[in-house]
């Protein structure tokens, strides 16, 4: 039996609290390229450069999904990669977080291409969406902060109308 929307919401809230409590200062990230053009990867790589210094915030990259708490997914999810993505997700210990990174992963670049799912959400249960083509390292840091509940979300308050809602 599928849980109702309220139960799902409550479970998601619990998971978020658990992650904030357990991974407050040590969260291991596994990146997963599902057919991206590698610019998202370039920006992710920049996170460990001294200028952004991801490790000062308690995030670390790990090469194995079995050691990872957070799956950072880039690319439009090529159909041939769906099974591998699913297996990667299943190999991770819980509680786990999936972060879709970049416009491809959000369904913005290949929405109807026959060779891709077009949206990471079709294969994996995504918890945080980071837009941008590519998302800058600052946007990625903000997204990771949102994922562990350390930074507040700003998007629902933005209107993208000039002079309103914070957008210039």
């Amino acid at each position, binding site marked *: 039996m599928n849980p109702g929307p309220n139960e799902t919401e409550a479970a998601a809230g619990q998971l978020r609290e658990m992650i904030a409590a357990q991974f407050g200062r040590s969260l291991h990230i596994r990146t997963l390229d599902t057919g991206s053009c590698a610019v998202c990867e370039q920006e992710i790589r920049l996170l460990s450069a001294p200028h952004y210094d991801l490790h000062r915030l308690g995030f670390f990259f790990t090469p194995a999904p079995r050691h990872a708490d957070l799956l950072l997914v880039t690319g439009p999810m090529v159909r041939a990669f769906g099974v591998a993505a699913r297996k990667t997700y299943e190999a991770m210990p819980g509680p786990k977080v999936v972060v879709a990174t970049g416009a491809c992963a959000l369904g913005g670049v290949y929405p109807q291409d026959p060779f891709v799912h077009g949206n990471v959400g079709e294969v994996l249960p995504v918890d945080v*969406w980071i837009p941008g083509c590519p998302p800058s390292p600052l946007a990625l840091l903000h997204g990771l902060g949102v994922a562990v509940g350390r930074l507040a979300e700003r998007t629902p308050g933005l209107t993208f109308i000039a002079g309103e809602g914070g957008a210039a």
Partner: protein
Amino acid sequence: MPFWFARGLRRGIVTTRYPARPDQSAAWLPTPPAFRPGQLTRQDADRMVAVCPGPALRRRGDTLVFDAGACTACGKCIEAAPHAASSSGEFELATTVRSALIKEIPIRGGLR
């Protein structure tokens, strides 16, 4: 030194705040457009939808529907109607709800 020691003993506090200081390079980033509904006509909206390389913009009646998640910040819509849109300067757009990224922009002369 005692400051860092005391800070290290506290639970759940980051080593350094984010951002540690405002980042200069943030001003040079390409960012999604912000629209001016008072200047935005149906013709402008249709031109923007036509030049958008992705599915980020579409018109639904008298509303321009903007999906910031699908936007690649290419700036073509700003070029197409510079009086009705400009760069928003917003790039920290991470969200836990995908639909929070979809915004509705009213068009001038619309019923809203």
